[in-house]
């Protein structure tokens, strides 16, 4: 074997990001006794599953998968979620916001309000039910200002709360996942990825995605400067005009607050091309619930949101 090429190999940026994420997942496996990986069927968590494969195969994942279902998810996404878990042969736990509503721990102000923020309650209930000491999630620091300062290993108290002024210092790659019973560590292996990195990784790894990430025809209405899909849970209001448009989703979450963008990108390569020239940030374009105030994410995180 030749050793000539050995001396100065530098990892490409995707290899570096992947390698960091694998290292983080293995630290969770090494340090925590009962972790769980949050898997929604969205693109970030799809990358997380590939990273988990790279981290732990040919062994099983040292954690189950958990989805907190708002009951307002696109069928394409939940079907994909179930299929992917089966293909991997890993255990999928689904806990539903609607069960929390039935228990009375989630109380909606109005029947059609977005349920994203209520996921915190159901997540905390699942953490308690299974005694998870760490939750691995696919959040990224580039998504939102308040996330830019969050640690990779982020400590939450017994109420699931994040205190931005009381974060553990995080140095080098020496992560501290220690917690007492009832407390919890949230871990974000792809903290340092951008939306663009995620798409590049999906292309490189040839990862399958739910179909609604690609351009498709869908009835929509225009509301408050954005596009709103017309569905059973989000009907058109009186006076609104329903149009059939070619759209795709950049994020997939609760139907009531996840808006598509107009696009004819029908492949990952074309989405990358569009993302490279896009002029609107991911959350700005597609998360109606984050527009309420500049500080809304920070507020939600303090309340235990992922």
């Amino acid at each position: 074997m030749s050793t000539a090429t050995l001396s100065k190999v530098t990892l490409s940026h995707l290899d570096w990001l992947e390698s960091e994420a694998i290292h983080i997942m293995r630290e969770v496996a090494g340090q925590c006794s009962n972790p769980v990986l949050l898997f929604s069927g969205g693109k970030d968590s799809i990358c997380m599953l590939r990273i988990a494969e790279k981290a732990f195969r040919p062994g099983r994942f040292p954690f189950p998968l958990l989805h907190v279902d708002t009951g307002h998810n696109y069928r394409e996404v939940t079907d994909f979620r179930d299929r992917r878990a089966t293909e991997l042969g890993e255990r999928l736990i689904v806990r539903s916001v609607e069960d929390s509503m039935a228990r009375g721990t989630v109380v909606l102000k109005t029947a059609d309000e977005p349920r994203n923020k209520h996921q915190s309650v159901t997540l905390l209930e699942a953490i308690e039910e299974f005694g998870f000491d760490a939750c691995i999630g696919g959040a990224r620091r580039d998504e939102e200002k308040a996330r830019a300062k969050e640690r990779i290993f982020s400590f939450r108290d017994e109420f699931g709360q994040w205190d931005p002024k009381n974060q553990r210092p995080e140095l080098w790659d020496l992560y501290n996942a220690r917690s007492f019973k009832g407390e919890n560590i949230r871990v974000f292996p792809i903290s340092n990825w951008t939306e663009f990195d995620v798409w590049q990784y999906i292309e490189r790894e040839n990862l399958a995605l739910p179909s609604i990430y690609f351009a498709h025809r869908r009835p929509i209405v225009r509301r408050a400067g954005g596009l709103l899909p017309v569905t059973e849970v989000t009907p058109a209001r009186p006076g609104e005009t329903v149009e059939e448009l070619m759209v795709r989703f950049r994020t997939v979450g609760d139907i009531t607050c996840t808006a598509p963008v107009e696009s004819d990108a029908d492949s990952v390569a074309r989405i990358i091309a569009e993302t490279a020239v896009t002029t609107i940030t991911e959350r700005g374009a597609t998360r109606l619930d984050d527009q309420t105030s500049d500080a809304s994410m920070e507020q939600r995180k303090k309340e235990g949101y992922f």
Partner: protein
Amino acid sequence: MSAIEKLPTEAIPDNGLLRFLTCGSVDDGKSTLIGRLLFDSKTILADTLHAIQRTSAKRGLDIVDLSLLTDGLQAEREQGITIDVAYRYFTTGTRKYIIADAPGHEQYTRNMVTAASTADLAIILIDARKGVLTQTRRHSYLAHLLGIPHVVVAVNKMDLVDYSSEAFARITADYLDFAGRLGIADVRFIPMSALHGDMIVERGKNLHWYDGPTLFEILENVPAIHAEHAERFRFPVQYVCRPQDSSNPELHDYRGFMGRVESGELLIGDAVTVLPSGRESRVKDIRILGRSLPHAVAEQSVTLLLADEIDISRGDMIVKSGELPQISKQVDAMLCWLSESPLDPRRKYLLRHTTRDSKAMLAGIAFRVDINTLEQQPADRLVMNDIARVSFKLAQPIFADPYAESRGTGAFIVIDESSNNTVGAGMIV
């Protein structure tokens, strides 16, 4: 065994990733500099720009305040200062950058130490009107202490000194005077105006007398951190994979040692030694998800298979035979104390080094460093933001290198088991 494939890294025309740190106070225009980098590299998107335009107008400013881009948390927005390390991202198409934005105030030494721990380059901001200040020395000392190999001194606000080359030359001379005494090897100086965008990405029209590189050119050309010096191979074991799958004979005796290469490189066939047992073997395979790699390089996460059956667990270290680290139950280190509770010499702490934990007790404080004067002072306790030369006695041996030679195996953190907080950061001397 499956066919050996080429490393994917060789197929991608990509200059990797560079992590850098910006240090300076609010008044030096640090946030404006970062805003400028993001703005001129076309990283800022329309809705974000609209938001800061609105805020700038609301505050009665006549130009867009790019510093608003890096304002993160509510508390900071109210106080108008940065209170914690924030991370920002941009890419030039050939390189991805991670900026660690550390606050400059004295009480936030721990934030700068945190940000510096992962940085390959530091940008130290100086206000051209004020020249080299105490905080400049402090930032430079910390950058040097944390082993950042490249320092760029950004002499900002040149517009406020009429773009004077004399002012720039004076500051350069002042800085070199004390940098030489600190032992900082690679320093470059750039005159700039972050506000007007001179010498950041574009050269601008105002600094015609300066013929050195722009900040962007320096960032694009700095060598990757592990590519500069020969390094010894260090592989702390994070996790052991034993599928014990009886239905698959290939996996029946599979033992994969999982971890990330902290430094150096490894080839299939290399002779290795496992610590602490001292057992020797050869590398049978280097794997990642069903693929076999011919070699593993620094910062790469892989799974190693060895030719012999050796009992290895998390916390052990695999090194090349003949390149052993120091195996010791005593460490001498520079320690930065990060906690509001002072270091208590009577208490036991947990010391975490690579993937290995050991109980630790303070054996002595040689001196405390006044980071403003850089004087060494006697000390019998340490409080938050103190930096001192200390020694610890350990219950278990660690496998360490001097921090100056290897950050990955020269660094440790101290954990207080009563709170589980990370309370100290150490660099082995």
